[in-house]
């Protein structure tokens, strides 16, 4: 299964904490936490932050794709 597209709800759910998950990869948790705080500071950045999150997770698919699949 490929990584979900940038418009998939999983990215919004991560940054709005509707879905809470601790990834096995340190950088993934830090990237998600950064997105959460950036979204809280400026919700209008949601689409940009979703793009950044997807870019990150595409880079680390080897480590994170199975966990993203479980969140969908």
């Amino acid at each position, binding site marked *: 299964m490929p990584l979900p597209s940038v418009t998939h709800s999983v990215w919004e759910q991560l940054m709005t904490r509707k879905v809470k*998950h*601790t990834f096995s990869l340190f*950088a993934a948790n*830090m990237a998600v*936490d950064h997105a*959460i705080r950036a979204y809280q500071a400026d919700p209008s950045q949601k689409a940009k932050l979703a793009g950044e999150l997807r870019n990150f997770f595409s880079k680390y698919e*080897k480590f994170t794709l199975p966990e993203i699949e479980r969140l969908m």
Partner: protein
Amino acid sequence: MSKLCNISEANALIDAGKRLHVAGDEGALAGLHRGTWIGGTIPYFLTREGGVVDRNRVFVTELPESVTSVRTALIAEKELARVPGEAPENGFSLTILPGMSRIHASYALNAERLPKLYEHPIIGWVSGVHLSELDTTKPKVVDGKSGEFCSERLAILHASLPESRIASIGIVNVFQQGAGDTIVFDETGFSGAGCLINGTRANFYDYVRERKLDLQLPLVANQSGEMINVSFQALDEASRSVKFYAPVLERVEYRQAAPIGDYRAAFASRVKALGISPAFSCNCILNYLYGHLEGKQDIPIAGPATFGEIAYVLLNQTMVYLTIHEA
């Protein structure tokens, strides 16, 4: 390979064309030949024989054979975007910040705003000096290519990996949030005063004094499951504020760490449980000091004991490590 070497051993590696990360006292680093390496000043090390203070030898980490190419540079404060910006598409970046400098503070405060920070593994540490020389000697970094020492720019080594390999960064933090009060600071910064404690406005300096907090136990934030420490540096009576070794972040909920009992045993247990041989590692000098690690042999991962650790952002009281995996 990572170990303490005398200067002639380290120079033999440099002259053989090895790509190295080096930590050592400034006088020892000054004796190294030019080559493909970066270094930072620090005389404290965790070795497989125990924690040591050594001003004559240097701690050398040889980059893995799988590294295909290396670039080194010294980067100024206004150029921080180059840190992730010039990182290899696949690889890792080793970074050393000169301790107690403007660029140290600037990186700590601004790293998260650097574009694509988390898309490239960025690991490293903050250089330091012997604790008896805090007021007289400046921590420095050095680019082995030019031999230039510097106290206001960071040293960086970008290492590329083949498609068959991928790098990742991990941390070891012995602390968890305690069950005490929640603290949310008004501002991001290296000092804290105005804050909300359990939602009630307070001054953090007054709170620390009244509660007689154990300043060896850091503040801990739960950042999406990662326990991120901010260590206490000092109480500043004049400004009624508390100074930290890393910035506290606004909108983040902190709690003081729960006591851990035997500090050294807790740390050793966590490191042994990893069961890894990292390509690079460093550990906080506060762990070295508070854990009484000098001369003790039960920490199986070696590296410099540093004035701050970098795993993308600046961390405190944490061990950071880099591992290379099959892609």
